[in-house]
């Protein structure tokens, strides 16, 4: 009705219900490659192809999303300013993962390779110091050192089974999704993968992580939520498939996550690698 020019969506996530009522929609935040929309209390992101597909992503090829000022939902059409988004040619992204049959030796080796890449190439102020303490030297000022200590202490406590440390770890760090939240996200992904490969049920723990770490940060909440129900963003799904199968591209998929702007990628990987190793050492897997 009020549609002028259509923006063609390339894909949309399988957790987006295009038929539901999006009346309560508003812009949460806008970046060059992303517009995050708050729909009720969930985030739906409209992203550039470079960001990739995801359970709650709508991929539209736009140069700079910062040109858009308004979001509107009218007559079942989503509008950015006056541009309606056309889903007719969009492919549905499948965010679930099916784990191929596993070779233990190869898998451990893949995990090792990816850990090495993280230790070597992660941004200086990321949490990768948890994997290798020689990286602690990057934290120079008192403030940076205190930040590092806080992450270290709370993460160690959590790994020693003090679940309440989640309360201290969440929300720690700089930006849009603080490092603490990303580390928690990594642990939750590890819990899911551990369940898939070992058969040990972790669904309650994942749910508890999600509920306990939920805070006023709708973005972190959304990321952790999708991880907790086994839904993954394209770049992470590729990574998981690589380390769980032939391991051909482990280095490049790891690098792709690290290059994913900011420290998020490194923080998620750090949480993922350390906790998954810990779960596996628990001895429950390879009996």
């Amino acid at each position, binding site marked *: 009705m009020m549609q002028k020019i259509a923006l063609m969506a390339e894909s949309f996530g399988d957790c987006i219900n295009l038929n539901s009522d999006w009346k309560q929609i508003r812009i949460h935040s806008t970046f060059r490659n992303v517009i995050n929309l708050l729909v009720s209390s969930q985030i739906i992101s409209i992203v550039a192809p470079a960001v990739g597909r995801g359970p709650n992503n709508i991929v539209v090829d736009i140069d700079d999303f910062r040109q858009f000022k308004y979001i509107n939902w009218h007559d079942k059409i989503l509008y950015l300013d006056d541009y309606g988004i056309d889903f007719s040619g969009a492919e549905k992204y499948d965010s679930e993962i099916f784990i191929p049959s596993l070779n233990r030796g190869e898998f451990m080796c893949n995990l090792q390779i990816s850990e090495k890449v993280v230790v070597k190439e992660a941004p200086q102020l990321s949490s990768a110091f948890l994997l290798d303490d020689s990286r602690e030297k990057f934290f120079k000022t008192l403030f940076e050192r205190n930040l590092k200590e806080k992450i270290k202490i709370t993460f160690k406590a959590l790994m020693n089974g003090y679940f309440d440390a989640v309360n201290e770890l969440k929300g720690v760090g700089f930006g849009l999704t603080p490092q603490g939240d990303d580390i928690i996200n990594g642990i939750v992904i590890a819990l899911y993968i551990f369940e898939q490969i070992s058969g040990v049920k972790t669904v*309650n723990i994942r749910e508890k992580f999600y509920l306990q770490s939920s805070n006023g940060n709708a973005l972190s909440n959304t990321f952790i939520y999708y991880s907790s129900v086994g839904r993954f963003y394209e770049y992470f799904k590729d990574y998981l498939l690589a380390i769980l199968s032939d391991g051909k591209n482990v280095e490049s998929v790891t690098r792709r996550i690290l290059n994913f702007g900011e420290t998020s990628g490194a923080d998620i990987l750090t949480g993922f690698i350390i906790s998954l190793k810990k779960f596996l050492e628990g001895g429950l897997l390879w009996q």
Partner: protein
Amino acid sequence: MLANELFKKELKVINIGLLSFKESLDKEGVKTIQIDWKPPATEDEETLDALKKLLGNK
């Protein structure tokens, strides 16, 4: 507070659920707080034990 006392006071609302109800009340100048509500967590002694086991801490 009995209902009759409510009628004498300024209505102040806590809204749990649909945000549009808060938005309507905002427009009518009624003081309203929205709760960021989530389904309650499972009762979870068991869950915590399971986590400790996973981490190798008995």
